[in-house]
């Protein structure tokens, strides 16, 4: 067990790689009542085409399978795992993203048993034809729920406009049709390939004693057998740099229209500090112009092109990246056109040193605030870890950024072919 000490933040992370390849990180916060444990596999909705473990040929599995698998891991032959956590006074949950599937619990007592339960249920799958069929009804209602949510539809609609082929365009839960094709054998194929310990990370943060906790995890893992893990061979389709659709809209029964402007980021296969710097700069630049203190926000708001539902976000990964700006608008065409112009104008802009310092301070403050949350620490640490970034080294990287870095970033950022506009229009029925 190795201790990583971060002096300025007054935090220590303990790490160890188990013999089977599982990476474990522990953070002790004895002043908290709560402990949060999260067990993550580096496998998400975009991992649709891959070579199954022990096979030679690549397969493509139905859309939505990573999420389906997440649901089904909770069901065992004789019980529902939620009940196990209930009995231990814990609450459990799970989520699937583009690149990850994570299982988690929070508890204030019986932490050792809860950690064992988490490890054991994820590492002991039980899938049957019958239970797979039963789950289709539940997930269909989950998909239907999202179908009625205009924010979700506009978010995914924008991504679908940006991408031609890359599976990031596929809704994480799949579609009501695609999930019908999922079989128990598909689930086992995905499970065996992606749930090998060497593809997973466990993070436990909170009211724990690191030494004893690490012993317990080591002991738990040493009792289980796993085959040797070859490198996982995943493939993604060739994706052009241009967007799939420059403009697209759908109609929904909404009271106010929505307009979203999407930017497809160039894929540069970045990792480590380079990726972090890009992520930070893009966030700070958008913040500078489009947050409530920004000149662009002020103009859009005054002209009644946006309201306080206006948002922006950037998601950068190794193989894909996008930025989406938008929200409700009474003049969606005008709003989208103006935001597009603004994005182009950015190339000629320069942020003054004084303003850049302000944006750095804001970023530092946001980061410090986020560190109050055990969930944030564990989630974000895991996410960054898979990208080669150390969460607790973010602060010095923010401190090192300059207005010149921002200028360079902007000059390489954006071209016309990489922008899509997506709208949700109100239905005009009687």
């Amino acid at each position, binding site marked *: 067990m190795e201790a990583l000490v971060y002096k300025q933040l007054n935090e220590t992370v303990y790490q160890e790689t188990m013999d089977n390849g599982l990476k474990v990180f522990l953070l002790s916060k004895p002043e908290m009542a709560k402990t949060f444990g999260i067990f993550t596999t580096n496998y998400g909705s975009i991992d649709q085409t891959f070579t199954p473990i022990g096979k030679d040929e690549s397969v493509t599995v139905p859309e939505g399978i990573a999420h389906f698998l997440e649901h089904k891991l909770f069901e065992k032959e004789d019980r529902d795992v939620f009940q196990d956590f*209930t009995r231990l006074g814990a609450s459990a949950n799970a989520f699937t993203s583009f690149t990850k599937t994570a299982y988690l619990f929070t508890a204030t007592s019986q932490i050792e048993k809860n950690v064992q339960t988490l490890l054991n249920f994820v590492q002991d799958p039980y899938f049957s034809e019958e239970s797979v069929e039963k789950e289709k009804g539940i997930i269909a209602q989950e998909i239907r729920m999202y179908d009625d949510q205009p924010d979700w539809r506009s978010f995914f609609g924008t991504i679908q406009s940006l991408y031609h082929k890359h599976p990031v365009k596929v809704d994480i839960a799949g579609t009501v049709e695609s999930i019908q094709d999922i079989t128990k054998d598909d689930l086992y194929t995905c499970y065996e390939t992606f749930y090998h310990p060497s593809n997973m990370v466990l993070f436990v943060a909170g009211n724990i004693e690191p030494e004893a906790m690490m012993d317990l995890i080591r002991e738990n893992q040493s009792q289980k057998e796993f085959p040797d893990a070859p490198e996982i061979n995943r493939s993604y389709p060739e994706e052009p740099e241009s967007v799939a659709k420059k403009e697209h809209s759908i109609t929904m029964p909404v009271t106010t229209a929505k307009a979203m402007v999407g930017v497809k980021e160039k894929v540069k296969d970045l990792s480590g500090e380079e990726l972090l710097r890009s992520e930070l700069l893009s966030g700070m630049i958008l913040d500078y112009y489009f947050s409530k203190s920004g000149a662009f926000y002020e103009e859009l708001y005054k002209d009644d092109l946006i309201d306080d539902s206006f948002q922006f976000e950037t998601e950068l990964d190794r193989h894909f990246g996008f930025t989406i700006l938008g929200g409700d608008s009474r003049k969606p065409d005008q709003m989208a056109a103006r935001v597009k112009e603004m994005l182009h104008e950015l190339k000629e802009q320069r942020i003054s040193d004084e303003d850049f310092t302000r944006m750095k301070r804001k970023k530092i403050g946001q980061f410090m605030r986020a560190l109050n949350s055990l969930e944030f620490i564990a989630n974000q640490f895991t996410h960054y870890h898979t990208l080669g970034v150390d969460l607790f080294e973010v602060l010095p990287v923010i401190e090192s950024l300059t207005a010149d870095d921002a200028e360079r970033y902007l000059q390489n950022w954006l071209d016309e072919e990489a922008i899509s506009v997506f709208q949700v229009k109100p239905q005009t029925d009687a």
Partner: protein
Amino acid sequence: MKLTKETLLEKDGYRLHILPSKKYKTITIVAKFKAPLKREGITERALLPHVLQKATNNHPNVRSLQSAFENLYGTALSSDGSKKGENHVISFRMEVVNETYLNDQEPILEKAFQLFHEVLFDPKVEGDGFDESIVNREKQTLEQRITSIKDDKMSYANLRLMDQMCENEPYSLHVHGYQEDLKGITKEKLYNYYREMITKDMLDVYVIGDMDQEAMEKMADQYFSRKGSSNKDDDQASVSKKVEKVNEIVEREEVNQGKLHFGYRTYTKFGDDDYYALQIFNGIFGGFPSSKLFMNVREKHSLAYYAASRFESHKGLLLVFSGIDPKDFDQAKSIIMEQMDAMKKGDFTEEQVEETKEQVVNQLQETMDNANGLIEVLYHQMLSGAEMPADELIENVRKVSKQAVVQMANKIELDTIYFLTSKEGGE
């Protein structure tokens, strides 16, 4: 577990609650303004926090004010309006990084207090009112917020249920206000309402974080004192309507999924002796993934992705909500009714009661790990006059017997079933 200890001080025109805690890297300051819930003034109360956060005399526009917050290491200020039974509370929340973690000589915390003070007590004023362009723009935004509630079907279904179930009770009033009021709200009228609120509403200020208690008290006094305000609690007691007959309402909209909501009356409020039994009741009935609703509506019959219950502590309501296929209305309805009947008959085990207690205790402890969560718990306690330390609260949860849960189940009465469904769907 260490419990955060609260020091409560009666101050000049406000009440100060100090909570030293080493759990956080930030200091959180919350100011709560409470007044009786009334139709008159409800839209003003929804509008005010948004106007106040746009400009002060010192920072006369949004950009200037927001930049000032950003310079204080992104100090965040937010506000929300909520109902506590038949009362309305506006909360302003500020979170500022603890200076200990910054390599900076500036007094960040003091400056943040000062800015908070400006937003609340020194807004931008023109003549006898607020800045006209700000008021007009915020009215537009509020109007949009009011109409777009309909776009979030779960909230909309809940709103429609409350409209009809609690008709003629102040509780049914909308926290976002009403579109028809907006026209009549001028910058002067809004300012007059503001003067009323800022001087007469009951004000409680909470400060939580790792800090020096005396320094904190001094700063709070400097920036939150309200000279001449009596800080009186003008509490409006909650109305508990007797159910005469169960209402069933079906409404149709363009939706893919139907929203089936049930409204019950519990006749039990925060501070009542049997409140703890209600917590356990809710846990077994629909509060957790191990509950009857989750296990039967979702796991056994695959009718829904979510099926759950929650209770309103100050009004005495229990609400069930689920998202189902429009054609499954009858089946889902009868399954939900069966679960309530099972609760009334005591069709659950001692073991379930014990497990649920631990779940409730766990939830409570987790809530209290969070600065805003802890403040909410303490504020609830204070409003209901049932102040007690956390370990006593936990003790009381653990004392609940199965019999008490059955009694609670039999006290609860169904009032209204509400179904929001598709235009062509079944009922």
